[in-house]
């Protein structure tokens, strides 16, 4: 049995879902897409929070949810119109509700007066509503049901077995019952009917199997079996008919009374004496109509209601709901770890198979191929279990934007696209802070005040568009605003002041934009309440890089700014290229490799101060010796035997990494080394190879930075365009 604490945990999880539903629904309504379904969903969300809170004893939550619900009920009934003002109150109520849920979860005491402002606003609206309604109903709604006269309807729960042993009144019927397909379609179960029939007396049935086809031809929804038999009962024919009442059109039914004539006289007599009783039973046939004084015609209503509902229950659209199971995260993580171990063991096996003498490994490697295939599928399925829609991070943003726009007196609308895009939950968990920061920046620095916007010929309401999509094995999240964009002069001036850029350097707008992600850079002229405390975009960038992501920025003066985050889908297993330099083996993430080639000597031009430039389809790509970067000796030197890996380190930076050898592509399990060794520049993590040896996974982005800062790469800029410029010079 679940403990109370576990149930509370479940309740809070449900609250999160409900809150998300409430917020999303209210936002829809506010934008003018109101529909009954949405309003009902919102109402149900608040109602669920309230109901659960009541059961688990969170009084503050119940109290607030009740007022909230009352107003929503007005909207649902149509007695309240969803004016923008009302919607604003409701949206802020959803924020308060979410805070109260959080407080209940952490056990934090609710400060007296918390959310009172919002509560008063809600009560005010509800009050108006009540006044409007007063003309129709002059009695205030009672807090409880004391006002109504409801008598519980007792019921015999055990079906009264008809005394079949009373042989005197026993009658016998021959019954043939052959269900048709329609009967199953209307979800009537033949077996059930037979059970009910048995309750009437002694039933002696034989199942007729003659229509039963071979197993291969069996259709699951076809009733093949039919029954014949006899029923000894004290019940009347009408009572038997009643059992079949709902299926009589959907089956072949034959009920023939076979009671010997001699018995019948007695029976008739008994039946007539019992007649009133039986008749009464018929009137009360739906005997469930309660003794309700409000409604005299209750039985009649119940009958017609029953009829409708029967139709509904038989509706062929009924289909089983998608079922879900909640599983503790720990258990899934255990499976993920096991898959990781499996990948390693499999790589070892592969290594051994390769070492076998030619001709002996044929079947083995065939089977191994299959195992590899299955492991990959296993990995994908486990990963999809851990995957969560990014919506769970996105859902916090509307509130943020609402609060910020109130604080800054700006008008901002948040559009969200692709909330259902799924990504591993380890990424989700670490996405919240960077996103919050970026959006904060957008509202605070990006979007202009309504007056400025109007002056610039823009809509006074600014728009921030938050979108997510899968692109080439990564998830790309884009935050795009239509604000002022980056003030290049100011950024450049500041960068020069801080010595981040040489006094005579000319930079493109995009390059200037990227400057704001350098450590310690903040251009906000005044440190506002919202952003500009010195913890800036550099933190965002390192957060994103920590999870193997890339961040890039595009800004257009006066038109707005776009920040793009490209993130890996998972942090546990990845596809890698195993490479060798000198005696060392490394793994490079496959996602950062653009192409691998063995260039002809004539394509490499040696320029002073560089490790060479590769001419690739008319473009110049700077070359970097991996050995030099990591300060290990390499066999290759600058000979043409080495392999060049063209990598894309984000922000359009391309460079060729010179390595000695490519050993092949394989899946590797990512093992973090930072916990044990701290961050090593250029190394992202480690993995275990098939031969059981540890290999480092390269951090391509860091490598490109190292390349820029190294003496050999001093001339290499972080930007492709300047690379080209340099090559031309």
């Amino acid at each position, binding site marked *: 049995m679940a403990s109370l604490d576990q149930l509370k945990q*479940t309740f809070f999880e449900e609250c999160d879902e409900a809150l998300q539903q409430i917020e999303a629904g209210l936002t829809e309504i506010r934008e003018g897409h109101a529909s009954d379904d949405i309003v009902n969903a919102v109402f149900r969300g608040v109602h669920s929070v309230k109901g659960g809170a009541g059961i688990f004893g969170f009084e503050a939550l119940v109290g607030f949810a009740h007022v909230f619900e009352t107003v929503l009920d007005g909207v649902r009934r149509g007695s309240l119109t969803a004016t923008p003002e009302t919607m604003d109150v409701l949206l802020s109520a959803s924020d308060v509700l979410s805070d109260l849920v959080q407080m209940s979860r952490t056990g934090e005491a609710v400060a007296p007066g918390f959310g009172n402002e919002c509560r008063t606003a809600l009560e005010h609206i509800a009050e108006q509503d009540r006044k409007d309604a007063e003309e129709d109903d002059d009695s205030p709604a009672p807090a409880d049901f004391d006002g109504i006269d409801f008598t519980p309807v007792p019921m015999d729960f055990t079906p009264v077995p008809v005394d079949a042993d009373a042989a005197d009144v026993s009658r016998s019927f021959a019954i043939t019952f052959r269900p048709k397909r329609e009967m199953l379609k209307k979800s009537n179960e033949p077996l059930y009917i037979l059970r*009910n029939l048995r309750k009437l007396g002694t039933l002696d049935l034989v199942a007729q199997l003659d229509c039963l086809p071979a197993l291969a031809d069996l259709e699951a929804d076809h009733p093949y079996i039919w029954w014949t038999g006899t029923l000894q009962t004290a019940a009347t024919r009408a009572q038997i008919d009643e059992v079949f009442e709902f299926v009589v059109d959907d089956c072949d039914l034959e009920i023939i009374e076979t009671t010997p004539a001699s018995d019948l006289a007695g029976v008739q007599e008994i039946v007539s004496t019992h007649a009133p009783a039986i008749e009464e039973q018929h009137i009360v046939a739906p005997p469930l109509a309660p003794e309700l004084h409000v409604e005299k015609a209750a039985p009649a209503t119940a009958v017609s209601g029953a009829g409708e509902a029967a139709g509904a229950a038989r509706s062929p659209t009924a289909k089983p709901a998608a079922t879900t199971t909640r599983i503790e995260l720990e258990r899934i993580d255990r499976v993920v770890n096991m898959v990781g171990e499996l990948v390693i063991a499999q790589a070892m096996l592969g290594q051994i198979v390769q070492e076998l003498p030619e001709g002996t490994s044929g079947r083995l490697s065939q089977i191994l191929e299959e195992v590899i295939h299955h492991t990959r599928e296993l990995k994908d399925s486990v990963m999809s279990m851990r995957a969560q829609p990014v919506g769970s991070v996105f859902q916090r943003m509307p509130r943020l934007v609402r609060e910020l726009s109130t604080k800054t007196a700006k008008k901002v609308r948040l559009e969200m696209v692709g909330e259902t895009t799924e990504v591993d939950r380890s990424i989700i968990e670490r996405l919240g802070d960077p996103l919050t920061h970026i959006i904060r920046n957008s509202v605070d620095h990006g979007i202009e005040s309504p007056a400025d916007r109007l002056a610039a010929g823009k809509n006074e309401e600014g728009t921030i568009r938050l979108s997510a999509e899968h692109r080439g094995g990564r998830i790309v999240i884009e935050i795009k605003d239509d604000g002022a964009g980056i003030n290049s002069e100011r950024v450049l001036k500041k960068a020069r002041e801080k010595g981040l850029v040489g006094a005579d350097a000319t930079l493109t707008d995009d390059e200037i934009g990227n400057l704001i992600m350098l450590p310690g850079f903040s251009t906000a002229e005044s440190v506002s309440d919202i952003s500009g405390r010195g913890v800036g975009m550099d933190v965002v960038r390192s957060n994103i890089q920590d999870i193997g992501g890339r961040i890039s920025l595009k800004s257009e003066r006066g038109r707005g700014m776009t920040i793009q985050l490209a993130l890996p889908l998972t942090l546990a297993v990845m596809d890698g290229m195993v490479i060798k330099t000198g005696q060392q083996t490394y793994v490079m993430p496959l996602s950062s490799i653009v192409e691998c080639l063995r260039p002809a000597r004539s394509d490499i031009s040696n320029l002073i101060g560089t490790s060479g430039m590769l001419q690739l389809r008319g473009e110049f790509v700077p070359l970097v010796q991996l050995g030099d970067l990591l300060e290990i000796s390499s066999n290759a030197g600058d000979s043409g035997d080495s392999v060049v890996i063209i990598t894309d380190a984000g922000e359009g930076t391309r460079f060729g990494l010179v390595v000695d050898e490519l050993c092949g592509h394989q899946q590797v399990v990512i093992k973090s080394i930072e916990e044990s060794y701290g961050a090593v520049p250029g190394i992202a993590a480690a993995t275990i190879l098939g031969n059981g040896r540890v290999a480092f996974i390269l951090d391509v982005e860091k490598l490109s930075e190292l390349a820029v800062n190294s003496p050999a790469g001093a001339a290499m800029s972080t930007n492709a365009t300047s690379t080209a410029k340099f090559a031309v010079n």
Partner: protein
Amino acid sequence: MPNAVAIKVLVVDDQNSVRQMTRMTLEEIGFRHIHEAEHGRQAMEIASLQPLDLIISDYNMPEMDGLGLLRAVRGHPVVRKVPFILLTGRGDKELVVKAAQAGVNNYLIKPFTASTLREKIEQVMGKLS
């Protein structure tokens, strides 16, 4: 005198936590045969698969709400006579009136204690042993 152990009860609520709470409370009273459904439609599916002696259902649910379920139950040949207790919120007078017309046996205001639940069940099914 019906024995709680023998009564097969179906608890219908879309909120897992509330459903589990109801289950715990029922177990406290002595019930052992407890089925669960997330909404009315699922409840009807379950009801058509096994015999039931009692249905305790929430009102506010997606797919098919408590009132819809009540009407469906009363209109179904097999389960139409199964006692039905509706869970409601405080002050939901109109709902109780509607439910009464549709043939509800009793109602119960959330949140409830084991003793209230027992009382409400006993009002319908007789003293539990």
